[in-house]
């Protein structure tokens, strides 16, 4: 039993030492913890606490029409009001209409990405609608729309604009649509603002940043020479890395909790239980720390660790779905679950699980698959990290 107790004592000793060192390096600690809440706050400011309002350019060529009663009508104004009437569930408008006089002006704004799409209302807009109201079904309204198709906002913007227009035309002409669409939202997704939609990704991003802290903390022991001193002791790599990892995970969880509190203070609402979200954060932290330790195996200095850690950071950011949605290329399927390349990245499952909890109101039992995969990945990365560290940094040097 003595070796086990010795091992536990060393593990706890490293944990205490790491906590003390981090606590006394308050600048790095506070920046590490404050990063995620600041990011949440910044995101709130950029989205104004709600969702994106898309700028749509309207080139209104409508010349109006005189009704049978002699009244001059400009029905395009109603169409524009209909576009402005497209709102989120909380009442926030989805579109902001910018009136333009000529198409060249519109193209310039689209090139500058000052707007997502343009819509041209034709000269006979009012005239055709009036004819339709009179029962004439032989005419149709020619709407021209367009924009930069590589702009990720373009599709959403023109669909929303055309949807507003179509609804208006149906109303004023009394025509029923050929197809009646009924939307059913999953969980609480209908009421989610864009700010809320991105909170899970931001939380995971906070945890991803641990890859720097983990790799740099371990590399610091190498650079400062203190690892040489530890190599003379009976300490094993998993005791050193385990103690350090627990301390780092506490930092990750603290950052996650603080970010969550900030998000709640700014209007974020979770549909599912918070404790499940925290659990997801803990396991994701462990796996990210494991990756950080692998980075440290190939680093002799803190600077090297920082540079190398950018590689997994980039993969986590761009291919896990934390920041951008990614297409999934299926490699194989196990028990009805498809696996792609992105699934070897722990944050992929962290983001998916947090989305289920926060947006869809999932409980523990509904995220067990993600938690299981996260746990397996955490163990794999941590064991590989510890093995490599023992081999690369703690063995007798040749």
């Amino acid at each position: 039993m003595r070796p086990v107790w010795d091992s536990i004592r060393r593990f706890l000793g490293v944990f205490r030492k790491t906590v003390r060192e981090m606590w006394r390096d308050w600048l790095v600690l506070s920046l590490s913890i404050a990063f995620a809440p600041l990011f949440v706050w910044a995101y709130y400011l950029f989205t104004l606490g709600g969702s994106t309002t898309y700028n749509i350019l309207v080139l209104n060529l409508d010349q109006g029409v005189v009704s049978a009663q002699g009244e001059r009508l400009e029905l395009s104004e109603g169409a524009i009001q209909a576009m402005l009437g497209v709102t989120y569930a909380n009442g926030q408008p989805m579109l902001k209409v910018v009136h333009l006089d000529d198409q060249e002006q519109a193209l310039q704004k689209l090139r500058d990405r000052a707007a997502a799409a343009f819509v041209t209302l034709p000269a006979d807009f009012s005239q055709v609608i009036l004819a339709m109201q009179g029962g004439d079904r032989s005419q149709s309204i020619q709407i021209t729309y367009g924009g930069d198709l590589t702009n990720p906002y373009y599709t959403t913007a023109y669909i929303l604009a055309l949807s507003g227009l179509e609804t208006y035309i149906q109303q004023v002409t009394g025509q029923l649509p050929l197809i009646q669409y009924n939307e059913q939202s999953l969980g609480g997704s209908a009421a989610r603002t864009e700010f809320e939609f991105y909170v899970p990704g931001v939380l995971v991003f906070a945890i991803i940043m641990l890859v720097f802290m983990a790799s740099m903390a371990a590399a610091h022991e190498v650079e400062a020479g203190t690892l040489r001193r530890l190599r003379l002791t009976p300490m094993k790599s998993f005791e050193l890395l385990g103690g350090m990892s627990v301390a780092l995970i506490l930092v990750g969880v603290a950052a996650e909790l603080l970010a969550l509190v900030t998000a709640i203070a700014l209007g974020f609402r979770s549909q599912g239980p918070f404790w499940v979200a925290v659990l997801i954060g803990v396991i994701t932290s462990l796996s990210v720390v494991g990756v950080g330790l692998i980075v440290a195996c190939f680093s002799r200095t803190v600077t090297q660790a920082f540079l190398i850690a950018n590689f997994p950071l980039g993969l986590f950011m761009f291919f896990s779905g934390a920041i951008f949605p990614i297409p999934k290329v299926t490699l194989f399927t196990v028990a009805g679950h498809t696996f792609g390349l992105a699934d070897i990245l722990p944050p992929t499952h962290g983001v998916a699980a947090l989305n289920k909890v926060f947006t869809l109101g999932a409980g523990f039992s509904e995220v067990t698959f993600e938690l299981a995969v996260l746990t397996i990945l955490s163990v794999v990365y941590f064991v590989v990290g510890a093995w490599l560290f023992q081999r690369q940094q703690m063995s007798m040097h040749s």
Partner: protein
Amino acid sequence: MTTTVLQTVKLTKHYGSLAAVKDLSLEVYEGEIFGFLGPNGAGKTTSINMMCGLLKPDTGQVLVHSKPVGSSDASTRARVGMCPQNIVLWERLTCLEQLQFIGEMYGLRGSEARKRGERLLEELDLAEKRNKQARTLSGGMQRRLNLAMALVHEPEILILDEPEAGLDPQSRVKVREYIRSQARKRTVILTTHNMDEADRVVDRLAIIDHGELLVLDTPESLKQRVGPGDVVEILLAEQEGMESAVQQAVHVIQAITSEVSYDIPSRKLRLHALHVVAHLPAILEALHQNGLTAGEINVRANTLEDVFIQLTGRSLRE
């Protein structure tokens, strides 16, 4: 009867084509202070890194109580305490926390490690700084703490790499006394390029150069090898045709002592003889007759430097 605690058997280490240590075989006895003397780059640090299990030899092995020191054998390695030449501390831990932490890593209970840490801080005059972070200590204090870190697990063998390097005179005396006090409790192996330190502290001395063991004996015996008597060093005034004049003078001086050497670039004539002071007038006359003028004259007893010069033909400082 002497007991061997550490033995190196044909220890060899190369860095690329450079042989840092060549076929080093020696034995270190229980309770002695064993010194490695050699110039910078002689292979001292490489040797002790292999002795404490930090560095793998290309060939040969290190035995502690006849057991090989290998990376997998933590208990054998733990019998050795190592104080590196560089200060290796956790800068944000206090003095006591460092000692407690490293003690725990050696498997001590927290309370025991703390107790030993307190005692070491007391012994090394650091008790007042027990709660100060290492980064706030002076260089001398950090060096003493560096030494304490090697002792907290009470190793049988204490290895010190240049223990007096970078110390102020006060700390140097303190550390030297402390090393001597340790000899009664454990075996001490130290490296140095300081002849004075080696002469005053060690019981036996291994002189190494270019990775090779040149000689191993007590400092007194080594000095005896140079021969009894004193050493005279005469700095000659610079002049033309100096070399032939010096050769002629040396020819005359060899009637007094056969141990005469000279170095033209440094203009230094070096003699070794019994009662050399009594022969000084004759030596100076020989120089004068050959047109040479003596400048600074230095008369001193034999040192380990002389041993090194005799063995290698050059000074330790070169």
